[in-house]
Each structure stands twice: as structure tokens, then as C-alpha cells.
């Protein structure tokens, strides 16, 4: 049923439809509305769940790890400093192959302190071994959350659903919240093959010598690569039930024979989509929205970029001293192609800097440079800095 809902409210209702038995969370802007709404749903007896109000994000992640390992479906959500505080546990959850689902309400990292949106938090834990799915709008975040549970439970890999803080979490828009029966049809009750059970004791989380560690890591990497099929299938199956389609690994929009492409993650895609429609005079452009950043879908990316001479990557993150995180991975993925497009790598919208429609024209203008930008913060106003820092 379509309702006007804040993104966070919609996520809370969706999580309830997925019937987690244990939820643990610690408040941090801009995730707070999600967990407050869940706490209220539990208090109103709208769904049966133990809501564990922990004393830190470190414990939030640990509680869901313990609960999922003990055989219950779980949920947690965080952002920014909370993600960093969780990071040791996030690696542990993934390495133990525990199917946990969480929302990251993307927010910048301190210092300097910023409560506003970018994606440096989830990018900082990109190598934790989680599946990471980035959502362009709130409807997609709702549908992705439901799919995330099935993906996690079938692959025994944790899934982080990333949605831009404020831009999505605090925006009111019409959202279709599915019926319970639809979710139940899609998502079977939680079963976990390695659940802790006193009638069938197992040992989990052992010390592993060099004789086995590389194999464990290989298996984890392979499981993530294999998860691409499950991500695609979950999207297809949920589309059939819900009647809505966002995308599997990625989404392309626009001319198949365009020579110029722009790739982004998250809500910036909506901005580019609008701008492209408003500016046909800027020529044919292919827009690519990367939904799955982990696993990094190389084959799908190569296919989506086929025929391009130039690809502009706009990401809300950077690796200081390194450059564009997604930009560099795109270069690596495309380098194998015979006619690899030139990759222009930019960060935009850091720390909540507004990403206006004219970012589209600015991104396209960059293509005219004789050599592609290795990396730059596209919307940085360098005149604000002392000369030595420019």
C-alpha cells in the first residue's frame, strides 16, 4: 500500500515485516529515526521481537552476531562513527559467515565532525567481507532490505544496505510498503545450518593456523563473488511478487550508443537522472548506478560500460592519499577491455555538500579535459583554503 512515509519509518516497517527475533541498536544521527520507529513498533506489540538497547555500537553488532549464531533472524542499523566502532565486529561477523542484515544510514566521518551525508562510513568497511548494496531512493531501500535477508540467509554472508543519511532517511515520500503475505512468500522463516544448539554442539570461531587461513579467505572471497547470482535472483523473485523492479547488481539508464557514461552510487543517481532528462542538449549520456559494490560486479560493469569512450565516476567518498575508491576500482575493472574508456574520478557531496542538478553538466565538462582527472573533489571550493592547502 502506498503511503507518505519518511525513509526511516518505511525501513522500520519493512524490518518488522521481515520478522527478526532480535534487534540491537545504538543511536546515531541519521540512523536514529529507524531504531526509534522500530522500538515503538515493538512497544506497541506490532511484532514479536527482543529489542536490545545496548550500550554501544560495538555491542549492537556483537548482540546480533550472538543472536544470529544462536539461530534467530536479527537486525541492526548504524552510521558514521558507529560503523567505525563496529568495524572489528563487522569483520568478525563476515569471517564467521553469519547472515546478519543491517542498514547503514550513510554519514560522513570525523574529523572534522559532520553529521551530514556522504558514504565514507560504509566505504571504510568495504573490505570487511560484507555484501554492500547502495540504494538510490527509499522505495529501493525498502525492497532491498527484504531482499537482503534472503541473500544473507542463502549465501551465509552478512548484508549491509546503504542508504544516504537525511537525503533518504529523513525524506518523506510516497512509498509502497508490501503486504506481510508478500514478504512471507518471499522470505522463509530463518534457518541457519550452523546454529548453536545444545543438542548438537559445534565449535565456532576457532584459532586457525597458516595451514588453513588462506583457504578460509579464498572461500570467503569466492562466496562473495558467487553471491552475485543470489543478488540478481532475489531482485527478480521479489520483483515478481511486488511488481516493482529496481535493479540487481547495477542499473543503466539512457542511450545504448552513448559514448559518455556517468557512474554513481546511492541517491546522486536520482539527481543525475533528473538532470539528464532536463538537458537533452548535453548529448547522449549513459547513467550507471552501482547497486552492488561488494561483491564488485566486474562482468556486469564491463558490459554496462561497453562502447563508452569516457566514464565519469562520481562518488561520495575518497581514500585520502589514494583518491577515488570506486574510481580506482572501475579503472581496474575496465582495464581488461580492448577499448577501455577513460575514467574520470571525482568525489562529490562530501560531508553533506549539496549535489545540485548542475553537477551533471560539470561532470560532462570534465570529459573535455585532454587527460582524465586521476582524482579530484569536484565541488571543492579551493579559494576557501590557504594557498598551501589547495
Amino acid at each position, binding site marked *: 500500500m502506498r503511503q507518505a512515509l519518511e525513509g526511516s519509518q518505511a525501513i522500520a516497517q519493512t524490518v518488522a515485516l521481515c520478522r527478526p527475533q532480535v534487534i540491537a541498536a545504538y543511536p546515531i544521527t541519521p540512523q536514529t529515526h529507524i531504531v526509534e520507529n522500530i522500538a515503538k513498533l515493538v512497544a506497541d506489540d506490532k511484532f514479536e521481537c527482543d529489542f536490545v538497547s545496548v550500550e554501544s555500537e560495538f555491542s*549492537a553488532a556483537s*548482540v546480533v552476531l550472538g543472536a544470529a549464531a*544462536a539461530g534467530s533472524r536479527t537486525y541492526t542499523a548504524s552510521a558514521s562513527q558507529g560503523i567505525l566502532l563496529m568495524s572489528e565486529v563487522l569483520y568478525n561477523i563476515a569471517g564467521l559467515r553469519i547472515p546478519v542484515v543491517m542498514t547503514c544510514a550513510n554519514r560522513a566521518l570525523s574529523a572534522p565532525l559532520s553529521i551530514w551525508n556522504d558514504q565514507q562510513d560504509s566505504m571504510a568497511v568495504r573490505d570487511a567481507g560484507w555484501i554492500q548494496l547502495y540504494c538510490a531512493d527509499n522505495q529501493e531501500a525498502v525492497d532491498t532490505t527484504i531482499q537482503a535477508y534472503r541473500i544473507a540467509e542463502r549465501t551465509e554472508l552478512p548484508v549491509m544496505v546503504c542508504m544516504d543519511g537525511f537525503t533518504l532517511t529523513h525524506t518523506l515520500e510516497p512509498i509502497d510498503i508490501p503486504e506481510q503475505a508478500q514478504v512471507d512468500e518471499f522470505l522463509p522463516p530463518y534457518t541457519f545450518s550452523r546454529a548453536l*544448539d*545444545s543438542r548438537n*554442539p*559445534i565449535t*565456532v570461531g*576457532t584459532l586457525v593456523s597458516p595451514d588453513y587461513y588462506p583457504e578460509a579467505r579464498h572461500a570467503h572471497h569466492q562466496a562473495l563473488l558467487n553471491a552475485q547470482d543470489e543478488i540478481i535472483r532475489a531482485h527478480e523473485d521479489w520483483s515478481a511478487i511486488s511488481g516493482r523492479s529496481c535493479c540487481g547488481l547495477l542499473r543503466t539508464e539512457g542511450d545504448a550508443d552513448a559514448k559518455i557514461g556517468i557512474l554513481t552510487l546511492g541517491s546522486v543517481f536520482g539527481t543525475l537522472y533528473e538532470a539528464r532528462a532536463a538537458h537533452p542538449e548535453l548529448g547522449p549520456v549513459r547513467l550507471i548506478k552501482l547497486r552492488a559494490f561488494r561483491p564488485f560486479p566486474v562482468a556486469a560493469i564491463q558490459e554496462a560500460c561497453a562502447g563508452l569512450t569516457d566514464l565519469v565516476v562520481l562518488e561520495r567518498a575518497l581514500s585520502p592519499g589514494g583518491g577515488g575508491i570506486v574510481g580506482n576500482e572501475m579503472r581496474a575493472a575496465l582495464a581488461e577491455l580492448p577499448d577501455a574508456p577513460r575514467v574520470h574520478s571525482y568525489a562529490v557531496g562530501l560531508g553533506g555538500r549539496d549535489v545540485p542538478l548542475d553537477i551533471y553538466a560539470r561532470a560532462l565538462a570534465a570529459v573535455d579535459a585532454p587527460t582524465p582527472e586521476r582524482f579530484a573533489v569536484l565541488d571543492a571550493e579551493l579559494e576557501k583554503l590557504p594557498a598551501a592547502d589547495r
Partner: protein
Amino acid sequence: MTDKTDSKDIDIARLREHQPRFQGITSGHRACLGCGEALAARLVTEAAGPDVAIANATGCLEIFTTPWPESSWRVPWMHSLFENTGAIAAGMEAAFKMQGKSTKVLAFAGDGGTFDIGFQALSGMIERGHNVLYVCFDNEAYMNTGIQRSSSTPHAAMTTTSPPGKARMGKRHLKKDIISIVAAHHIPYAATASVAYPSDIRKKVRRAMDIEGPTFLVIHSPCPLGWGHEADISIEVARLAVQTGLMPVIELERGEVTGVMPVREPRPVLDYLRPQGRFRHLFADNPKAREELEHIQALADHNIEVYNLRGEIADRMDSEGADTVRRGGMRWA
């Protein structure tokens, strides 16, 4: 009765329950000779029985019991990290509760994982009232990483990060009073114990198992390697810690002391300190060493007074009588 049993018909889980004494941890692990922690863990799991699941912190116990692909554990056991054991246990408990299972969750950690890095998760677990028995195996240092000081290391003890030297007499600070801090959470049941008194441990574990809510047990567990004593006197050393008053064996309910193991004739702390290499520098002939010895004796005297360890009446279960075998019984367990 058929004379040939089909292996499919054997319910392993039920068989385990009918063993004369259930062992949650079996032999074959890699603990050092004389390890107090290994013995204490065995005693706890024996008393707790098979319907448990364990969350175990990083530390010696975790390392020496689970060299993949082997495991000493005969109960469900999970190790996650060093500092989140209280929260892992809380999550397991929440899940079992929601599934309607009676399985009791145990949390196991060393003193480092309890007094220091895991303290926040432990405090949260207790505050939220999770039905978990948290057991701290207190060997008074970070042993797994090579005997570094923890906040449980006793005053003046030598560790690799509190070495004695010209300017220092070992650890400068006092042992953290963890039991009082935990008791201040108004936890239903908190107790200290010593691996030298197995029946006391069993009694306390059974007590805690019967309580629906958070319970806490610290078990003083010698580490021959870390403490620098012979491996065959671990129990003797542990016993002396109690008999000198340095390690009061007490029980607290909702923050009030409700039980103490009396010490009949308190022994001088020298008897406890002398066999241990970690206190060797205190026996050097210098005024600073003598001052520290007096200081340690004063700490023991303080415990004896505060907890009234001498007891008012003769008690057969005091630090001399407990766990001694007598004709005709008198063993508690």
C-alpha cells in the same frame, strides 16, 4: 532388546546427559602443565551440565581449546572477539529466549577480557538483566600475549609490562576490585571462588544456574608460567591466596555480602608470595622491597577485616576444611 544396535537409534544428546559426570571440556587441549584456568573451566562446565552454550573471549582458554580442526568443547561454543563476550552472550540469550529454549548461556573470559577491555560489554549485559552466567578466569595478567599487566594484576607483581627496576617495584597500581564494581550493578548473584576449592566452585555454579538473570563468578586461577611457580603447586598457591586473605572467597546478592569462606588462621602473605617468581624482587634486601611486602600484608589484613574472614564461629567449610576429604563424607559435591 536387540543385541545389535542400529547407530541411527542412538540419541547422542541423551546419552551425554546420562554420563555419570558431564564434561563440557575434554582432555587433549593444549593448556600448559598446571594451568588453573583449564581446571576451572572443566569444573564450571561439569557443574553447569550439557544444556548450555558458551561465548568465549579471546585469551588462553580460547586458544588452547580450539586449534582448528580440533576442539575440546562438548557443548556449543563460540569465540568472537576479545572485548565483546558480554554482548555475544547477551545476543545468544536473547535468541534462545525468543525461541523458547531453556539453554543457559555462559560467558567465559580472562581477567583482561573482563576487568579491562570487555568491561563495558559486561556492564551492559548485567544492566540489561540478561540471563547469563559470566565466568572470569582470573590469572591476573594478559597471559595469552605473554604475561602483560592487566588491571587485575596484584600490586607489586612483575609482568612484562610492569617490570621491576631501579625506579619501580613491579605494578604500581592496585588490583581492581571487580567484584564490588559488578555487585554495584545490584546483580542477583556475584561470587568469587578459587580453583583450589572445587566443591565451592560447583556449589556456586549450580546456584548461578538456578537464577534467572545475570550472575557473575570470578575464579582465581594460577598460571605457573606467568606467576613463576612450579606447575605441580598450582592448587597450593591458589589455596594460599585464600588462606592469606589476599583473595577473599565471597558471595554477594543484590550488592550485599551474603557469604564468605572463613580463613581459620590467616597465613602471612610471605607464604603466598615466596614461591612465585613474579614477586621475587620483593625479597631483595632493600627498604623499598620491605615496604612493598608490608603494603601487601596490609592489603590482606584489610580484606580479612572488611569481609570478616576470621569468622565468628568455627566453620568446617573454612579455607582449611573445604575440599578436604573426610571419612564419612562432608564433601559438598
